[in-house]
C-alpha cells in the first residue's frame, strides 16, 4: 500500500482484505529513546476496531510519547507500527488517516469555527459541497451549529473542546487520538464531556485512543485500558480486569485505592504481597464466633457521604483501610475490631518487599 493510497480521503469504504480479525492498530516492540532516557521500552499493543482504548499512567510514563508516535510527530527508535496491517513508520502525520484532539485544542485562531472544522477535508481536496455538508453534520454532532461564525477566542473552554473534536472527526479518520482532552476543563464540565466523548465514540464508531493520567476517567470511559509506567506497559485489560485483578503492585496502587499488605502482617506462612480494595474490607466487633483475617484498632474515621472510611492499625502498625456503607454499626477511634474480607477479594502480587508496606 503506497503512501498516496493512505492520503486519499480516509472516508473510503473499509474494504480491506485484512478484514475484521486483524487489529486496527498494531504496536510492535516500540522503543523510543531520547538523549539520556528511554521514554518507551519495548511496548507492544493491539487496538481493535471501534474500541475506546485508553493509555493511562502518571506523567512521564511514556503515554504521550506513544500517542505522538502513532500520530506521526515522533519517530520511534525501534519497532513497528501498523494500521490495518499497513506500516505507518515512514509516513508523516499528514499522510496518516489518523487525527488528533490536542490537549491545548490547538484551534487555528485566525479561522472561524466552520473553517477550523473544514480544514482537514479541504487539505484532502474534498469538493466544497462535500466539505460544507460534512462541516454542518459535525457541528450538529457536537451541538455547535449556532457558533459556526465565531473565532476560537470567542468560545468557552468547553466549546473549544467541541470544535477540536469536530475538526478531528470531520475527515473521517480511521483512528482518533485524544491527548488529555479534558484536563483543561473544570470538574463539572469534565464529567459532562466524559459522557459526551463516550456518546461521540458510539455514534461515530471511530476507534478512540485516549491518553490520560486520571484513573477515574479511564475507568468510566474505556473499553480497554493500557496502564503504563516508566516506559513500560504494566497491564492491558478491561476496566474491570484492571481494577479487580491488577497485574502488579504499580497497577494496584495507581488504580483506585488499595490496601497492600505483607503476608507476615496477617500472620501467614507465605510472605506474599496481598492487595485488598478498601470497599471489600469489613469491620466487625470482636466476640465469640467472629472471625477475621486480622485484629486491629480503629485510628481514624472519615465520613465521605455515601460511605465511611475507617483506618485501622494492625498490631505491627500496618494500616488497613475499610470503606463501609453500614450505618447501623459505627465504630469510633480506639475500638478493637476484627478486620475481614472475602477470600476472593484478595489479589496476590508476588513476594512482599523486606521493608514495611505502606497502604
Amino acid at each position: 500500500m503506497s503512501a498516496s493510497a493512505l492520503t486519499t480521503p480516509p472516508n473510503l469504504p473499509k474494504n480491506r482484505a485484512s478484514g475484521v480479525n486483524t487489529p486496527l492498530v498494531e504496536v510492535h516492540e516500540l522503543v523510543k529513546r531520547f538523549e539520556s532516557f528511554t521514554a518507551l521500552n519495548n511496548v507492544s499493543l493491539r487496538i481493535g476496531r471501534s474500541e475506546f482504548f485508553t493509555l493511562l499512567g502518571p506523567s512521564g510514563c511514556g503515554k504521550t510519547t506513544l500517542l505522538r508516535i502513532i500520530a506521526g510527530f515522533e519517530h520511534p527508535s525501534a519497532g513497528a507500527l501498523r494500521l490495518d496491517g499497513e506500516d505507518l513508520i515512514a509516513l508523516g502525520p499528514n499522510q496518516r488517516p489518523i487525527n488528533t484532539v490536542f490537549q491545548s485544542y490547538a484551534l487555528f485562531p485566525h479561522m472561524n469555527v466552520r473553517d477550523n472544522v473544514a480544514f482537514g477535508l479541504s487539505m484532502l481536496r474534498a469538493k466544497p459541497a462535500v466539505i460544507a455538508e460534512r462541516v454542518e453534520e459535525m457541528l450538529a454532532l457536537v451541538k455547535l451549529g449556532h457558533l459556526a461564525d465565531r473565532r476560537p477566542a470567542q468560545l468557552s473552554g468547553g466549546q473549544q473542546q467541541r470544535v477540536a473534536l469536530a475538526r478531528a472527526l470531520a475527515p473521517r479518520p480511521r483512528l482518533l487520538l485524544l491527548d488529555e482532552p479534558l484536563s483543561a476543563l473544570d470538574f463539572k464540565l469534565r464529567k459532562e464531556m466524559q459522557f459526551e466523548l463516550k456518546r461521540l465514540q458510539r455514534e461515530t464508531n471511530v476507534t478512540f485512543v485516549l491518553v490520560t493520567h486520571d484513573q477515574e476517567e479511564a475507568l468510566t470511559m474505556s473499553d480497554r485500558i493500557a496502564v503504563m509506567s516508566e516506559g513500560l506497559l504494566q497491564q492491558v485489560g478491561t476496566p474491570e480486569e484492571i481494577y479487580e485483578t491488577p497485574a502488579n503492585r504499580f497497577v494496584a496502587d495507581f488504580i483506585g485505592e488499595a490496601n497492600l499488605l505483607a503476608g507476615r502482617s496477617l500472620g501467614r506462612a507465605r510472605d506474599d504481597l496481598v492487595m485488598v480494595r478498601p470497599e471489600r474490607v469489613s469491620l466487625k466487633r470482636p466476640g465469640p464466633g467472629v472471625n477475621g483475617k486480622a485484629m486491629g484498632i480503629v485510628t481514624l474515621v472519615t465520613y465521605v457521604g455515601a460511605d465511611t472510611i475507617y483506618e485501622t492499625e494492625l498490631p505491627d502498625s500496618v494500616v488497613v483501610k475499610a470503606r463501609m456503607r453500614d450505618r447501623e454499626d459505627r465504630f469510633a477511634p480506639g475500638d478493637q475490631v476484627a478486620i475481614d474480607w472475602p477470600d476472593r477479594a484478595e489479589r496476590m502480587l508476588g513476594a512482599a518487599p523486606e521493608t514495611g508496606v505502606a497502604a
Partner: protein
Amino acid sequence: MRARPFDWRKTPGIAPFAAFAIIFLYAPLVVLVIYAFNANNVVTIWTSFSLKWFGVAIQDQAIRDATFNSIVVAVASTILATIIATLGALGLERGPNFRGRGTAIGLVGLPLVVPEIVTAVTTLVFFSGIGLNLGLFNLIIAHTVFCIPFAMLPIQARLKEMPAGVEEAARDLYADERRLFMKVTLPLLAPGIMSGAMLAFVTSLDDFIISLMLAGAGTTTLPVYIYSMLRVGVTPEINAISTLLLLLSLIFVVAALLLTRKRS
C-alpha cells in the same frame, strides 16, 4: 476587584512629572510644525500664516531627489530585510537545533548594540576596499543589513508566542509543508511581519550616520540633505520638510495600530 497594594498613579508628584515629560518630548515637535506655516524667511520670527514653504520644499529639485533616494532605499531595504528576517526567524525558531544557534541569534542582533558610527566606518572601508561602487545599491545593501534585526525582533516574538500545537494540528489534518506555511504559519505570522517591515522602513528612512558616510554625489538621502541645509542656515523650508516627514511617520504608526487592532 482586589485592592492593589501600590498604585503608581497615586504617587505624589507623578502628575506634574508626567506633564513635564510630555511637554519636554512634544513641545519641540509642536513648535516645529507651527513654524512650518510661518511666512517669514527667518524661522524664529513669526509674521503670518503661509503655506509658502511647503511649496518651496516640494518644488526644490534637490529635496525631491533626496526624498526619492530615501524612499527607494527605504522600500528596497525594507523588502529585502523583511524577507531575510522572516526566513532567518523561521530557521532559528523552527529549524533543527544546531551548534552555534545562540551565537547566530547574537550575531543577527549585533547591529542593535554596535554603535552606528562603527558600522558606518567599517561598511565604508569594506565597500571601498572591495571597490563596490553601485550608487544607490551601496546604500540599499548597508540599510538592508542594519534593518534585518529590527525586522526580525517582532517576527521572532510572534513565532515564539504562536499558540502551541497549531502547526502540528495542521500537519495532523493533512496539510503538507507548503500549505502548512501558506494556510497557518504565514497568516499567524503576518502581524509580526508587518510590524517588522514598518520598523525596518522607519529605521532606514531615519538613518543618518551610515547614509552620510556612504552617500556619494547623487545618492544623498533626505536626512543627509537636511543636515547640509542646516549648515547653510535654518529656513522654514526645513520645518516644512520635517512636518511632511512627521506626517508620513504618523500615517505609518496609525496604520500599524489599525492593523494590529483588526487582528485582535
